[in-house]
Protein backbone atom coordinates (compact mmCIF):
# COMPACT_ATOMS: atom_id res chain seq x y z
CA UNK A 1 0.00 0.00 0.00
CA UNK A 2 1.44 3.43 -0.97
CA UNK A 3 2.09 6.07 1.70
CA UNK A 4 -0.53 8.38 0.16
CA UNK A 5 -3.23 5.74 0.11
CA UNK A 6 -2.38 4.54 3.62
CA UNK A 7 -2.60 8.09 4.92
CA UNK A 8 -6.11 8.50 3.39
CA UNK A 9 -7.19 5.29 5.11
CA UNK A 10 -5.69 6.36 8.44
CA UNK A 11 -7.44 9.76 8.29
CA UNK A 12 -10.77 8.04 7.52
CA UNK A 13 -10.32 5.61 10.41
CA UNK A 14 -9.38 8.40 12.82
CA UNK A 15 -12.49 10.34 11.82
CA UNK A 16 -14.68 7.29 12.45
CA UNK A 17 -13.07 6.59 15.82
CA UNK A 18 -13.27 10.26 16.84
CA UNK A 19 -16.98 10.31 16.02
CA UNK A 20 -17.59 7.20 18.05
CA UNK A 21 -15.86 8.81 21.02
CA UNK A 22 -17.47 12.23 20.52
CA UNK A 23 -14.05 13.86 20.03
CA UNK A 24 -12.43 16.03 17.37
CA UNK A 25 -10.11 13.94 15.11
CA UNK A 26 -7.17 16.20 16.04
CA UNK A 27 -7.44 15.05 19.64
CA UNK A 28 -6.51 11.55 18.49
CA UNK A 29 -3.56 12.65 16.31
CA UNK A 30 -1.25 10.44 18.40
CA UNK A 31 -2.88 7.44 16.71
CA UNK A 32 -1.74 8.53 13.23
CA UNK A 33 1.30 6.25 13.40
CA UNK A 34 -0.93 3.20 13.96
CA UNK A 35 -1.81 1.35 10.72
CA UNK A 36 -5.34 1.51 9.23
CA UNK A 37 -6.09 -2.18 9.87
CA UNK A 38 -5.22 -1.86 13.56
CA UNK A 39 -7.14 1.41 13.88
CA UNK A 40 -10.14 -0.35 12.41
CA UNK A 41 -9.73 -3.23 14.87
CA UNK A 42 -9.56 -0.69 17.72
CA UNK A 43 -12.68 1.10 16.44
CA UNK A 44 -14.56 -2.19 16.28
CA UNK A 45 -13.50 -2.97 19.86
CA UNK A 46 -14.69 0.46 21.03
CA UNK A 47 -18.00 0.00 19.15
CA UNK A 48 -18.56 -3.34 20.87
CA UNK A 49 -17.57 -1.98 24.28
CA UNK A 50 -19.94 1.01 24.04
CA UNK A 51 -22.78 -1.06 22.66
CA UNK A 52 -22.40 -3.94 25.09
CA UNK A 53 -22.07 -1.71 28.15
CA UNK A 54 -25.73 -0.66 27.83
CA UNK A 55 -27.12 -3.58 25.88
CA UNK A 56 -29.67 -4.40 28.62
CA UNK A 57 -31.12 -0.87 28.67
CA UNK A 58 -31.09 -0.62 24.86
CA UNK A 59 -32.88 -3.96 24.57
CA UNK A 60 -35.52 -2.84 27.08
CA UNK A 61 -36.13 0.36 25.10
CA UNK A 62 -36.41 -1.65 21.88
CA UNK A 63 -38.88 -4.05 23.57
CA UNK A 64 -40.96 -1.17 24.94
CA UNK A 65 -41.14 0.43 21.49
CA UNK A 66 -43.02 -2.65 20.20
CA UNK A 67 -46.04 -1.57 22.24
CA UNK A 68 -46.12 1.86 20.61
CA UNK A 69 -47.55 2.95 17.25
CA UNK A 70 -44.87 3.46 14.57
CA UNK A 71 -45.66 7.19 14.38
CA UNK A 72 -44.96 7.61 18.11
CA UNK A 73 -41.69 5.66 17.87
CA UNK A 74 -40.58 7.91 14.98
CA UNK A 75 -41.49 11.05 16.91
CA UNK A 76 -39.65 9.87 20.01
CA UNK A 77 -36.64 8.88 17.92
CA UNK A 78 -36.29 12.34 16.49
CA UNK A 79 -37.37 14.47 19.46
CA UNK A 80 -36.13 12.50 22.48
CA UNK A 81 -33.60 9.83 21.57
CA UNK A 82 -31.70 11.80 18.98
CA UNK A 83 -29.40 10.35 16.33
CA UNK A 84 -26.91 8.60 18.64
CA UNK A 85 -29.39 6.52 20.65
CA UNK A 86 -31.62 5.94 17.61
CA UNK A 87 -28.57 4.52 15.84
CA UNK A 88 -27.77 2.24 18.79
CA UNK A 89 -31.36 0.95 19.02
CA UNK A 90 -32.00 0.53 15.26
CA UNK A 91 -30.26 -2.83 15.03
CA UNK A 92 -32.31 -4.18 17.95
CA UNK A 93 -35.67 -3.45 16.29
CA UNK A 94 -37.48 -5.80 13.97
CA UNK A 95 -36.05 -4.77 10.53
CA UNK A 96 -39.47 -4.34 8.88
CA UNK A 97 -40.70 -2.17 11.73
CA UNK A 98 -37.48 -0.15 11.71
CA UNK A 99 -38.05 0.57 8.00
CA UNK A 100 -41.62 1.72 8.79
CA UNK A 101 -40.21 4.06 11.44
CA UNK A 102 -37.57 5.36 9.03
CA UNK A 103 -40.28 6.07 6.44
CA UNK A 104 -41.76 8.63 8.85
CA UNK A 105 -38.51 10.44 9.55
CA UNK A 106 -37.04 13.31 7.52
CA UNK A 107 -34.03 12.72 5.27
CA UNK A 108 -31.89 15.03 7.42
CA UNK A 109 -32.48 12.99 10.57
CA UNK A 110 -31.86 9.71 8.75
CA UNK A 111 -28.55 11.17 7.57
CA UNK A 112 -27.74 12.09 11.21
CA UNK A 113 -28.52 8.50 12.24
CA UNK A 114 -26.44 7.10 9.36
CA UNK A 115 -23.41 9.01 10.67
CA UNK A 116 -23.77 7.29 14.08
CA UNK A 117 -24.99 3.86 12.92
CA UNK A 118 -22.86 0.73 12.86
CA UNK A 119 -24.16 -0.71 9.55
CA UNK A 120 -23.05 -4.24 10.50
CA UNK A 121 -25.64 -4.23 13.27
CA UNK A 122 -28.46 -2.95 11.06
CA UNK A 123 -27.68 -4.66 7.75
CA UNK A 124 -31.09 -6.35 7.45
CA UNK A 125 -32.89 -3.05 7.96
CA UNK A 126 -30.60 -1.11 5.59
CA UNK A 127 -31.24 -3.69 2.86
CA UNK A 128 -35.02 -3.14 3.18
CA UNK A 129 -35.03 0.67 2.80
CA UNK A 130 -36.53 1.60 -0.59
CA UNK A 131 -33.94 2.68 -3.17
CA UNK A 132 -35.49 6.12 -3.68
CA UNK A 133 -35.10 6.82 0.05
CA UNK A 134 -31.47 5.69 -0.10
CA UNK A 135 -30.99 8.18 -2.94
CA UNK A 136 -32.55 10.99 -0.88
CA UNK A 137 -30.35 10.27 2.16
CA UNK A 138 -27.31 9.96 -0.14
CA UNK A 139 -28.01 13.48 -1.45
CA UNK A 140 -28.14 14.74 2.13
CA UNK A 141 -24.86 12.99 3.04
CA UNK A 142 -23.17 14.30 -0.11
CA UNK A 143 -24.26 17.84 0.70
CA UNK A 144 -22.52 17.43 4.08
CA UNK A 145 -19.37 15.90 2.57
CA UNK A 146 -20.03 12.69 4.54
CA UNK A 147 -17.98 10.44 2.26
CA UNK A 148 -16.63 8.41 5.17
CA UNK A 149 -20.18 7.60 6.32
CA UNK A 150 -21.18 6.62 2.79
CA UNK A 151 -18.11 4.41 2.52
CA UNK A 152 -19.28 2.44 5.56
CA UNK A 153 -22.65 1.64 3.97
CA UNK A 154 -21.65 0.48 0.48
CA UNK A 155 -21.01 -3.09 1.58
CA UNK A 156 -24.49 -3.33 3.13
CA UNK A 157 -26.62 -1.99 0.27
CA UNK A 158 -28.35 -4.22 -2.27
CA UNK A 159 -27.71 -3.44 -5.94
CA UNK A 160 -30.89 -1.41 -6.52
CA UNK A 161 -29.97 0.89 -3.60
CA UNK A 162 -26.34 1.15 -4.70
CA UNK A 163 -27.49 2.04 -8.21
CA UNK A 164 -29.83 4.72 -6.83
CA UNK A 165 -27.02 6.14 -4.70
CA UNK A 166 -24.48 6.30 -7.52
CA UNK A 167 -27.01 7.95 -9.81
CA UNK A 168 -27.20 10.99 -7.50
CA UNK A 169 -23.40 11.10 -7.02
CA UNK A 170 -20.87 12.83 -9.26
CA UNK A 171 -17.46 11.36 -10.20
CA UNK A 172 -15.70 13.48 -7.55
CA UNK A 173 -18.10 12.19 -4.88
CA UNK A 174 -17.65 8.59 -5.99
CA UNK A 175 -13.88 8.99 -5.90
CA UNK A 176 -13.99 10.25 -2.31
CA UNK A 177 -16.29 7.40 -1.25
CA UNK A 178 -14.22 4.75 -3.06
CA UNK A 179 -11.03 5.90 -1.33
CA UNK A 180 -12.52 5.39 2.14
CA UNK A 181 -14.68 2.38 1.34
CA UNK A 182 -14.92 0.07 4.32
CA UNK A 183 -15.60 -3.21 2.49
CA UNK A 184 -13.02 -2.84 -0.26
CA UNK A 185 -13.78 -6.37 -1.42
CA UNK A 186 -17.03 -4.97 -2.85
CA UNK A 187 -15.28 -2.35 -4.96
CA UNK A 188 -15.07 -4.53 -8.07
CA UNK A 189 -18.79 -5.16 -7.87
CA UNK A 190 -19.47 -1.43 -7.43
CA UNK A 191 -17.33 -0.64 -10.47
CA UNK A 192 -19.27 -3.28 -12.40
CA UNK A 193 -22.48 -1.40 -11.59
CA UNK A 194 -20.92 1.92 -12.57
CA UNK A 195 -19.67 0.69 -15.95
CA UNK A 196 -16.44 1.64 -17.77
CA UNK A 197 -17.51 5.17 -18.73
CA UNK A 198 -18.22 6.31 -15.16
CA UNK A 199 -15.11 4.49 -13.92
CA UNK A 200 -13.06 6.54 -16.41
CA UNK A 201 -14.77 9.71 -15.14
CA UNK A 202 -13.75 8.79 -11.59
CA UNK A 203 -10.14 8.29 -12.72
CA UNK A 204 -10.23 11.70 -14.44
CA UNK A 205 -11.58 13.22 -11.22
CA UNK A 206 -8.72 11.51 -9.33
CA UNK A 207 -6.13 12.96 -11.73
CA UNK A 208 -7.63 16.45 -11.30
CA UNK A 209 -7.49 16.05 -7.50
CA UNK A 210 -3.88 14.78 -7.58
CA UNK A 211 -5.06 11.36 -6.38
CA UNK A 212 -4.43 9.43 -9.59
CA UNK A 213 -1.90 7.05 -8.03
CA UNK A 214 -4.15 6.25 -5.07
CA UNK A 215 -7.18 5.70 -7.33
CA UNK A 216 -5.25 3.32 -9.60
CA UNK A 217 -3.98 1.41 -6.58
CA UNK A 218 -7.59 1.04 -5.54
CA UNK A 219 -8.55 -0.26 -8.99
CA UNK A 220 -5.80 -2.85 -8.76
CA UNK A 221 -7.33 -4.04 -5.48
CA UNK A 222 -10.74 -4.18 -7.15
CA UNK A 223 -9.29 -6.56 -9.73
CA UNK A 224 -9.15 -9.12 -6.95
CA UNK A 225 -12.88 -8.83 -6.24
CA UNK A 226 -15.19 -11.79 -6.86
CA UNK A 227 -17.87 -9.52 -8.35
CA UNK A 228 -20.76 -11.44 -6.82
CA UNK A 229 -23.99 -9.47 -6.16
CA UNK A 230 -25.14 -8.45 -2.67
CA UNK A 231 -27.95 -10.45 -1.08
CA UNK A 232 -31.30 -8.69 -0.63
Amino acid sequence: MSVGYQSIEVRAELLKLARLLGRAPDELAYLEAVGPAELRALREQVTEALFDSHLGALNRLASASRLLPVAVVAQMGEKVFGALLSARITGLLDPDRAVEVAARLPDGFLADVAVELDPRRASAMIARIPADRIAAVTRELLARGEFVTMGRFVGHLPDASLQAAVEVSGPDDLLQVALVLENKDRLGHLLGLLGPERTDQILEAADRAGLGLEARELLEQAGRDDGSPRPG
Partner: protein
Amino acid sequence: MSQDPLQELRDQLRGDPPDALRTLSEADLRHLTEAIRTARVRQAAALEHAAEQGFSYVPRLLRGPIRRILR
Protein backbone atom coordinates in the same frame (compact mmCIF):
# COMPACT_ATOMS: atom_id res chain seq x y z
CA MET B 1 -0.54 4.34 42.74
CA SER B 2 -2.40 4.32 39.44
CA GLN B 3 -2.80 1.19 37.38
CA ASP B 4 -0.75 0.21 34.34
CA PRO B 5 -2.20 2.40 31.49
CA LEU B 6 -2.36 -0.54 29.12
CA GLN B 7 -4.35 -2.52 31.69
CA GLU B 8 -6.72 0.44 32.13
CA LEU B 9 -7.29 0.53 28.36
CA ARG B 10 -7.78 -3.26 28.38
CA ASP B 11 -10.43 -2.83 31.11
CA GLN B 12 -12.31 -0.22 29.08
CA LEU B 13 -12.17 -2.31 25.91
CA ARG B 14 -12.88 -5.53 27.81
CA GLY B 15 -10.12 -7.19 25.82
CA ASP B 16 -6.59 -6.75 24.51
CA PRO B 17 -6.11 -3.69 22.27
CA PRO B 18 -4.29 -4.15 18.93
CA ASP B 19 -0.54 -4.68 19.45
CA ALA B 20 0.38 -1.43 17.67
CA LEU B 21 -1.07 0.53 20.60
CA ARG B 22 1.73 -0.75 22.86
CA THR B 23 3.99 1.84 21.22
CA LEU B 24 1.86 4.76 22.51
CA SER B 25 3.14 6.86 25.38
CA GLU B 26 1.55 6.51 28.83
CA ALA B 27 -0.12 9.90 28.41
CA ASP B 28 -1.64 8.92 25.06
CA LEU B 29 -2.85 5.57 26.40
CA ARG B 30 -4.49 7.37 29.31
CA HIS B 31 -6.09 9.90 26.96
CA LEU B 32 -7.57 7.13 24.82
CA THR B 33 -8.82 5.26 27.89
CA GLU B 34 -10.43 8.41 29.25
CA ALA B 35 -12.07 9.14 25.87
CA ILE B 36 -13.70 5.68 25.88
CA ARG B 37 -14.79 6.05 29.51
CA THR B 38 -16.31 9.49 28.83
CA ALA B 39 -18.16 8.18 25.76
CA ARG B 40 -19.63 5.41 27.91
CA VAL B 41 -20.75 7.91 30.58
CA ARG B 42 -22.27 10.18 27.91
CA GLN B 43 -24.18 7.24 26.46
CA ALA B 44 -25.51 6.30 29.90
CA ALA B 45 -26.68 9.88 30.48
CA ALA B 46 -28.39 9.97 27.08
CA LEU B 47 -30.19 6.71 27.89
CA GLU B 48 -31.37 8.00 31.23
CA HIS B 49 -32.60 11.24 29.68
CA ALA B 50 -34.42 9.34 26.90
CA ALA B 51 -36.12 6.98 29.36
CA GLU B 52 -37.36 9.97 31.44
CA GLN B 53 -38.37 12.33 28.64
CA GLY B 54 -39.83 9.62 26.41
CA PHE B 55 -42.80 9.10 28.72
CA SER B 56 -44.39 12.39 27.72
CA TYR B 57 -44.83 10.90 24.21
CA VAL B 58 -46.30 7.61 25.41
CA PRO B 59 -50.12 7.35 25.39
CA ARG B 60 -51.34 7.33 29.02
CA LEU B 61 -52.81 3.81 28.78
CA LEU B 62 -49.45 2.32 27.76
CA ARG B 63 -47.32 4.02 30.40
CA GLY B 64 -47.78 1.24 32.99
CA PRO B 65 -46.81 -1.66 30.70
CA ILE B 66 -43.87 0.29 29.29
CA ARG B 67 -42.64 1.25 32.73
CA ARG B 68 -42.67 -2.44 33.66
CA ILE B 69 -40.54 -3.33 30.60
CA LEU B 70 -38.04 -0.57 31.32
CA ARG B 71 -37.59 -1.52 34.98
